[in-house]
């Protein structure tokens, strides 16, 4: 049901609002709408 992987936030990232953009790879036969998921860096 879920696809997942490890996202590492650099130590020098600025805290606050950011996005994780998720998209299907170009090599896939499935298309996608690139989706910007809002996240908060703490």
């Amino acid at each position, binding site marked *: 049901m879920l696809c997942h992987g490890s*996202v590492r936030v650099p130590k020098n990232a600025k805290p606050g609002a*950011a996005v994780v953009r998720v998209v299907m790879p170009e090599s896939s*036969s499935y298309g996608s709408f690139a989706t910007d998921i809002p*996240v908060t*860096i703490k």
Partner: protein
Amino acid sequence: MRRISTWTLLVAAVLNAAALATAQDGGPAATAAEPTYRLIDFAAIDRSIKKLPTFLSSEQRYGLLLFGRNGETRMWAVMDRSDPKRAPFDVLYLDLDADGDLTEAGERFQGDTTSVGRVNFLIPILVDPATKAEHTEVSINWRPKSDRLPEGTRFKIRWRGGKITMGPYGPYSKCYQPFATTPQDAPVFVPGFDRPFQFQHWMCDKLQRGNATEFKVFVGNRGSRPGSFFCVNDRFLGTKDSPEATLICTDLDGKPLRYHVKLTSRC
């Protein structure tokens, strides 16, 4: 399983290039050309119902399913009680031909009530009103509010008789959308996997600097609000079809930072 053809994807990619690159969190994006596939503008969805049956209960539950390339075909699902004094919503009116008339023969279903007050509706074959494809093993489950969970409605559909699509889901389980008490408030769902995929995170919207977070996403179609996402199951996509995620942020000096990862794990 129906795959989108390479040619269709190529045309869609050209027409949608600007929109697909910058679509913000599921909101509609403007394009100069009319795209093959568009993000659905849920605020513009017509919520009228042409003809309702005579209900027995003083309150009903409303949900709306969208079918078709861009969700242009509406199918209302309305729940009622066969006995107005009993709690379960055990009667389902499903607008199978999507004509807005819920009084027609064959569109009223009596559910099976379990010992804990849940209700299961099973529709062996649902002919897609937009594509005429046959979806099978359509399961709709209603559960009452309990100490642990809010009232809810769940769908599971064997899309085109093949793989499963199900919902609704959201970023947190407490926000999974139940049916609403009015058509105007009804959640809108987009089942299936005929359209380009969208993504919904699962409990990972807070990231810690210097740490790794297991970033989890549902793959499927967004609905009208958080908690109305329809997804495919964890066996749908092979490893080569793994979604790609890019963290987009800045460093402490304001310079752009990117962190790219393939979401190759499944659960």
